[in-house]
């Protein structure tokens, strides 16, 4: 039996090696994607340009503006003179934020009077606007703290925040686990479903079914090479994440790799399942794109936080999408360095999903023979 299996795997490897498209999907896409997500998609920003409408024009207001500039996040574009100028910067597209400092800033500031600074951001890009406002608010708070401590104000509440596990809020810490989950699922599921439907299209599947090969062996023979290669992919992405983007790896490497392996098997089962439903490679491609790629991107909490989704999607995303659990495991093991006990529930759920999917796939595969 093992010899037959070996013959099958060998043939499958020939297919993979000789097909440029498969090779590109297998190794090109993951690397490009990690680099893209790591470098291009970044929630941090530097040198956002800012306009200031300074009604006060006193010493304190100038100090505040300097303080904001010196943070490295903002550069001063223009000092405005009237309210009418506020919009022009946005319209030309060269300003991300406008800060309005009220009259008598200095005296109100030191006189403990109510004081409001207005921040105007471009809401057409809500994520960016939110982040900018948050950054600026924190800068203003720190400015206040610095100045007022010098004159000892006992009533001031100071907030001191510390971002655990990712103190510098580096977005790669979030994107690398997400990208691994995303890539493994897409690659494994799409490639296996393509490989199986291709045999259907060619008519070779018929021959295989007429041969004495048991269906399980056909599936295993087709899937094993992809399992291995996807696993190599996972390691590749981990290496890039760790050495290029400096994502830490605090937990057990073995636990991490075992979880990757489990997730790869889950993805492959999904691929087999798709291929039992799809008759052509095109259908298989579409199904893996629409059915797997979009939910994984959008609903796994990878790009958009769960808390900002409508409840229905939150439920779907957190229960049905396998990537959700896997990302959770990756973050837990890589960033928080926890052990098996802390991720056992996620692992159990992934394992359960794998078993159900495999059973479904096998059942469907057999029905097709009848």
């Amino acid at each position, binding site marked *: 039996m093992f*010899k*037959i299996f*070996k*013959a*099958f795997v*060998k*043939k499958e490897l*020939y*297919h993979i090696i*000789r*097909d440029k498209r498969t090779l590109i999907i297998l190794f090109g896409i993951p690397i490009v994607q990690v680099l893209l997500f790591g470098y291009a998609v970044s929630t941090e920003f530097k040198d956002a340009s800012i306009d200031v409408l300074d009604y006060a024009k006193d010493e304190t207001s100038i100090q505040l503006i300097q303080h904001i500039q010196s943070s490295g996040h903002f550069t001063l574009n223009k000092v405005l003179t009237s309210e009418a100028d506020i919009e022009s910067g946005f319209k030309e597209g060269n300003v991300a934020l406008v800060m309005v400092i009220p009259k008598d800033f200095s005296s109100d500031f030191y006189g403990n009077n109510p004081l409001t600074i207005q921040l105007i951001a471009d809401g057409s890009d809500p994520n960016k606007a939110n982040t900018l406002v948050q950054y600026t608010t924190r800068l203003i708070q720190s400015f206040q703290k610095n100045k007022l401590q010098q004159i000892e104000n006992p009533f001031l509440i100071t907030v001191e925040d510390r971002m655990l596990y990712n103190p510098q809020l580096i977005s790669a810490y979030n994107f690398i686990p997400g990208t691994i989950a995303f890539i493994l699922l897409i690659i494994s599921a799409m490639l296996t479903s393509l490989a199986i439907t291709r045999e259907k299209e*060619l*008519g*070779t599947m*018929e*021959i*295989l*079914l*007429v*041969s*004495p*090969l048991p269906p399980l062996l056909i599936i295993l023979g087709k899937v094993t090479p992809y399992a291995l290669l996807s696993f190599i992919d996972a390691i590749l992405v981990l290496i890039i994440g760790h050495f290029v983007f400096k994502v830490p790896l605090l937990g057990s490497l073995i636990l991490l790799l075992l979880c990757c392996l489990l997730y790869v098997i889950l993805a492959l089962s999904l691929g087999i399942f798709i291929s039992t439903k799809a008759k052509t490679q095109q259908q298989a491609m579409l199904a893996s794109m629409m059915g797997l790629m979009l939910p994984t991107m959008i609903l796994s909490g990878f790009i958009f936080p769960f808390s900002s989704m409508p409840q229905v999607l939150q439920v779907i995303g957190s229960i049905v999408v396998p990537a959700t659990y896997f990302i959770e495991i990756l973050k837990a093991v890589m960033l928080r360095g926890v052990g098996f006990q802390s991720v056992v529930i996620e692992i159990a759920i992934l394992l359960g999903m794998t078993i159900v999917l495999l059973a479904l796939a096998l059942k469907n595969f057999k029905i097709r*023979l*009848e």
Partner: protein
Amino acid sequence: MNTPIAIELDKLTKRFGDFIAVDAITFKVKKGEIFGFLGANGAGKTTAIKMLIGLSKPTEGMGKVAGFNVDTEPEKIKKNIGYMSQKFSLYDDLTVVENIQFYGGIYGLSREKIKEKTTEILEELELTEVSKSLVISLPLGWKQRLAFAISMVHDPEIVFLDEPTGGVDPRVRRQFWETIYQVAEKGRTVFVTTHYMDEAEYCDRVSIMVAGKIEALDTPHNLKQQFEATSMDEVFLKLAR
């Protein structure tokens, strides 16, 4: 009358719900015979073949292929038959040799046996020169003969050929039939479907299936007499009407 029997069907039937795809077909095929299995598209040919090669379970009736029951022993049947489909079903991105090795491998042949078979097939088909070329680069006629040879890599008693000459030009078709004769002479049973009526003339015996039933079964010569026709084409047209 003691010729061994290769295929024996007794009222073999396949129903899909209310639809009777194959309606109680009964016939025997002798060992070493070239048996033509004819019928228009949708007459139930494919379903019947699927039952014979162990891909589909019969609803009723009995069938024996190579001495094994189609209902209960499909796995044993699979080991003892060869199958070649219309699409030739070779792997285009594998070389000639790799194709032979793969199919030899999945039938569980030993390494020595595979080596021996590879040389044999390459020499017989005069493919030694292109043995390391990808199959995709071969002319259709070569692919066809290679697929045929590969379907017999495990020396099966019976080969099933499902429209093996589809899309091939007449000269190549004739060549192919010569190979079929050679195979039958060695005592191997050939069960072939075709919709080229001239090919029906080459068969030892021919059955014609209409709407799930076998409407005629005899040698081409007798069939032509029976239906007062000059060619199998005419026989077929008379029956199908």
